[in-house]
């Protein structure tokens, strides 16, 4: 039970970084922490007490494996997160080229 709370605390740390920090790179790190927290949460949901890892090998029986489906979901989610973070880092570098700063309080051309 306490491990689920730790995952949610990790998610709120990442959310704090996205919402309150002023540097774009710190916001990106907040996004990465949030996605780590959600992937961990997904994998934790498949745990069974005293289960072993869900690998099919020739000399062990199939009984009590941990649930493998959330692990596949977490793998897909990691790859999607990779593409998203690569794109946002590219956009952040171009923003530095155009505005000369990484501070979001100074990047305010669009208003209203």
């Amino acid at each position, binding site marked *: 039970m306490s491990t689920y709370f730790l995952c949610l605390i990790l998610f709120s740390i990442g959310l704090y970084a996205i919402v309150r920090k002023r540097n774009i790179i710190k916001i990106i790190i907040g996004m990465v922490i949030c996605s780590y927290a959600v992937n961990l949460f997904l994998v934790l949901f498949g745990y069974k007490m005293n289960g072993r890892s869900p690998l099919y090998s020739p000399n062990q029986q199939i009984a009590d494996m941990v649930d493998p489906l*959330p692990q596949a979901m977490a793998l897909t989610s990691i790859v999607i997160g990779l*593409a998203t973070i690569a794109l946002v880092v590219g956009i952040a570098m171009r923003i530095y080229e155009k505005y000369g700063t990484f501070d979001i309080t100074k990047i305010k051309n669009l208003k209203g």
Partner: protein
Amino acid sequence: MKIVPLFIILPLGAAFLISLYGKKKKRFCDIFSSLITFTLFLISVYTIFSVNTRELPFIYKVGGWIPPLGIPLVIDSLTAFMLLIVSFITFIINLYSVNYMEQFTAKNKFYTLFLLMLAGMNGVLISGDIFNLYVFFELASIASYALVAYGTQAEELEAAFKYMAMGVVGSLFILLGIAFLYSNYSTLNMADMAKTLTTQGVNKAVAFASVLFIVGFGLKAAIVPFHAWLADAHPAAPAPISAMLSGILIKSLGIYSLFRVFYNVLGANHSFLTLFMFLGTISIVTGGLLALGQTDLKRMLAYSSISQIGYVVLGLGLGTPMGIFGGLLHLFNHSAFKSLLFLNAGAVEYATKTRDINKLGGLRKKMPVTFNTSLIATMGISGIPPFNGFFSKLLIIFACIQSKHIGYGLWAIVGSILTISYFMKLQKNVFFGPLPKEHQETNEVPFLMKTSMVILSLVCIFGGLAALPRISKYFVKPAEKVLFEGKEYKNIVFKVVNEK
């Protein structure tokens, strides 16, 4: 039955082929992409007729695995209706962007991203499994983030970063919701989850997951507390992409997913429907009030999108047959006239290179096609009979009064008055009035742009006929039936799966 995966295969394969060959021959990517979108439009017309005459959905088991063990692709009436809208608007915008994107470099990368976004949207619509929906949702989102930043000017990059920061948080909330639902029911198939939910009932984890879904999908649908990205992202994108984003992306990724999960999987109970009506009404009024003070042409249209999506959410949140019918009809109408308005704004920008309505004026003699189509779209969106917006807004207001929520109906009428006022301001400042000196030699936009705008305006004129019972029997009424009898989804899906 074999045509169902074509909705994903065709745009995906075409995107990679254009990325491979597009640099060598200039016209190749234009012609190929237009062919692919036209083929998808014809397939979607065939699909909607066959699904609605058969009264049973098409189900395709990917890889031959039987659901709930495998991933099914389900086309029922609601999906076919949305696929028709998406394919038609994409084809028109593809014709438009052949000429418009000459201003930018690297057109083959634009078409790659455009077709990937289309593949993602189609995948969201036809997926029968909730995690598959999330994967295609992310594909379409990432393609749209890249397309908003396409011009790499300073404002476009800033708008893209704001959009991405909010979009990533929304997607993570959806994934958390899926994790909660999986932990409760240990299945990811939407029909199977609905079946287990009716036998076991709703517990607190499902209520928490519902709120997470409202935040996540509502962010993509630009419902009011989560609307802040739309006003920056839609003006900054190039004009065909603004039309795609505002015309179909917020509906396919936001409204369709939200209401599919709420009506068919989770079962709509009374408190959530009241929440939707409340959020819809706030969206109508907030979007309308914020649009009154804008001076940028496309920013005013973006706030107007928030307002009209509020009408759709209000209609769909009512839960009565007339309300859902009005909401779906307004969804169809809004994609037609909002795309047309954004294409007009793009045409004005192409010809005069500015978007500020204080600097424009008197363009109605210089650009007659743009002026006429813009006038038709304005009369459609304001709800003037006999154009199409009148029927859908009238149905939503009648449905509010019929189910005794008179306050919501009054706010919807206030929203309609606000709509007509800011569109009058836009028309007066852009098309009427004196022509400024620096725009004396503007002339009309090229042929393909004119053709696409004229076709959309024809839909605006004749779209009201879709409310007639003889036409809506094939078109909107079965889609409304899928949502109204939400619990029948799982029965129908399992019946079709088991009879093979």
